[in-house]
């Protein structure tokens, strides 16, 4: 030391070894932290790694050439062979195959694809070779959108982090002041300059704003990535926290609990008619209608190779059905009211009609030339896993409610089949959000799951909006969480990942707060007068390095989180 006499005798100790070891420990901690932090973004790296590198482009002359995917343009025709990755999003134009979409949806079962079906880049073609037309390339593909969404969400913070954020803002000056206050106290009590120097410095060394500042962001980063692995895209930290606190979940019926694709499930004929005749007239008349139930009947007729006839004088009567002239005969197809309005009695079929309705099916009467010919029952089948998922949600203590525009009878029948007690039926789309509001006044955190444009206001009104499946863009825009898969299991996955992430954040915050609130006073020497404990600055350096490393390592544990019974 140069001019040691300039300082008091008690302050002449040089502390070279302490300075060296502290710097070494802090640097080692930082190095280990950088390494651990690299792992937190592994989910994103994995998503980026899913992208195909090349594609086999077919030109106008039919020549095929492998090109980098960066060179692909919209409308390019591409050949995809079995076992290959689909290079970009597009539409299947020739051939058929089964596609493994698990990397996007989390659903392990391959999906069969035929001409005109949508294909997503980076999914894997399992069996057949086919041609496809590129519809989205580069940053517009679904995978790129997912990566962008996850990256953006990873930077957001849940409300729980607000306290840590506000503390972080005052942390550095407060610690500096505490170091000065420590010096003042020990000086006035009469301790030596060396003691004052050690305690003040130890306060500065042990204080770790990093642990506090990192506690939430690092867990959010890992948690959002983990959610994406399960096909759950969480828009922001608030959505993540709210999903873990859900008390009530409102499920839209069509497309959420049911498949959203109605199909003919039963046909009943009167004695004078057979099923083929019924299907011929029903299919023909419904060709002119745009109603989803009409499409189900037309599809059913086509499936049974029924030739359909030309429709004349088509007339749709709101709330009743349709009537038209086909092959010179007057055809009526609709509900009981339509028949009654046309002085037709349905007494013969009434019992069966009520039975079908009680099963959640929609019975439609058909009359040919003023004679009731039978019933065609259309139903929107319940998704295979809806019942199990709803049961599991209820097991978690979540109150599940169903909302639908369907009639009371059908709605209650579907609700009964899946085990839901509270039902809002015959709700017009514009009033769905009002029902969410009403529930918000009774329950604490309300979630809403829907897929259609008509669900968007309710999704926005709910505390957590879930857009399910290949939902409409409007629904996805309004939702806090997008479930890529078309299954309610996605909601369970979202809840499980968000709960695990929130738990992890709480552990980190608790650790960081406790570390600083205990470590700083000990470093300042509060225990010295009582038990003679004074913290060595080197131990403080080690503790400081270890604290932020602990936070990062704890967050990294989330990478190994698994939803029970589900594969990411």
């Amino acid at each position, binding site marked *: 030391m140069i001019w040691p006499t300039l300082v008091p005798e008690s302050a002449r100790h040089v502390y070279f070894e302490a300075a060296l070891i502290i710097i070494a420990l802090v640097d080692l901690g930082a190095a280990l932290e950088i390494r651990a*932090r690299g792992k937190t973004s592994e989910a994103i790296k994995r998503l980026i790694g899913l992208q195909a590198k090349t594609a086999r482009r077919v030109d106008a002359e039919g020549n095929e050439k492998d090109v980098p995917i960066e060179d692909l343009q919209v409308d390019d025709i591409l050949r995809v062979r079995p076992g290959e990755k689909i290079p970009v999003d597009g539409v299947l134009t020739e051939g058929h195959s089964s596609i493994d979409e698990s990397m996007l949806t989390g659903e392990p079962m391959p999906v069969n694809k035929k001409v005109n079906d949508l294909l997503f880049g980076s999914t894997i073609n399992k069996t057949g070779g086919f041609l496809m037309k590129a519809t989205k390339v580069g940053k517009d593909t679904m995978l790129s959108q997912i990566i962008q969404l996850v990256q953006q969400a990873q930077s957001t913070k849940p409300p729980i982090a607000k306290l840590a954020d506000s503390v972080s*803002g005052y942390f550095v000056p407060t610690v500096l002041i505490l170091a000065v206050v420590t010096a003042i106290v020990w*000086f006035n009590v009469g301790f030596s300059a060396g003691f004052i120097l050690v305690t003040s410095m130890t306060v500065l060394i042990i204080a770790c704003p*990093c642990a506090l500042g990192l506690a939430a962001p690092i867990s959010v980063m890992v948690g959002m990535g983990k959610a994406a692995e399960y096909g759950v895209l969480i828009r922001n930290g608030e959505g993540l926290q709210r999903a873990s606190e859900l008390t009530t979940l409102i499920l839209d019926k069509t497309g959420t609990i049911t498949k959203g694709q109605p199909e003919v499930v039963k046909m009943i004929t009167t004695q004078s008619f057979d099923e083929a005749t019924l299907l011929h007239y029903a299919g023909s008349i419904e060709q002119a209608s745009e109603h989803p139930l009409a499409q189900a009947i037309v599809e059913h007729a086509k499936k049974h190779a029924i030739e359909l006839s030309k429709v004349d004088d088509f007339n749709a009567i709101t709330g009743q059905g349709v009537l038209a002239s086909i092959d010179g005969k007057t055809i009526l197809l609709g509900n009981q009211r339509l028949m009654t309005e046309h002085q037709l009695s349905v007494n013969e079929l009434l019992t069966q009609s009520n039975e079908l309705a009680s099963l959640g099916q929609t019975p439609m009467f058909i009359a040919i030339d003023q004679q009731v010919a039978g019933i065609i029952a259309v139903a929107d089948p319940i998704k295979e896993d809806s019942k199990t998922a709803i049961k599991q949600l209820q097991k978690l203590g979540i109150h599940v409610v169903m909302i639908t525009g369907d009639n009371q009878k059908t709605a209650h029948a579907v609700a009964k089949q899946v085990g839901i007690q509270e039902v809002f039926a015959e709700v017009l789309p514009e009033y769905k959000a009002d029902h969410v509001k009403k529930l918000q006044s009774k329950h604490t955190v309300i979630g809403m799951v829907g897929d259609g444009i008509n669900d968007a206001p309710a999704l926005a009104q709910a505390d957590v909006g879930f857009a399910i499946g290949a939902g409409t863009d409007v629904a996805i825009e309004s939702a806090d969480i997008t479930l890529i898969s078309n299954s309610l299991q996605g909601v369970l996955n979202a809840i499980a990942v968000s709960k695990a992430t929130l738990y992890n954040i709480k552990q980190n915050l608790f650790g960081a707060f406790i570390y600083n609130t205990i470590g700083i006073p000990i470093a300042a020497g509060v225990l010295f007068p009582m038990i003679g404990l004074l913290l060595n600055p080197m131990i403080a350096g080690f503790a400081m390095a270890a604290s932020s490393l602990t936070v990062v390592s704890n967050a990294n544990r989330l990478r190994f989180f698994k939803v029970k019974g589900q594969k990411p």
Partner: protein
Amino acid sequence: MISIILFNSIAALLIILIVIWFWLIKGKSTQAQTNEITIKVKDGVYSPSRITTKQTKLVLNFIREDASPCSEYVLFDQLSIHEQLPLNKLHKIILSNLKPGHYRFTCQMGMYQGELIVNSN
């Protein structure tokens, strides 16, 4: 006795200086003359850390020279922007449709702090 008064006075002065430095003094604001400005991330701070502009579109060229992992990300919370800053490389952040107001930008932990002030024309 004098030494006690002297020590306590110096310590009190130090506390006052810390309060003034961290809470009362606002850093000098740099006026963005064009719609492009370079911000260095070095030694635990953004430089400049306060930028005033009248532009509604602004290109921020971040150059991160600070190897600390804390400086790895820059966040504009109000604009939902979160960008990773590569070490010793220029990283452009384009802000468009900026409305008049104060936009804070920080590192992931809120330790590095800066402010973008957009004034109306």
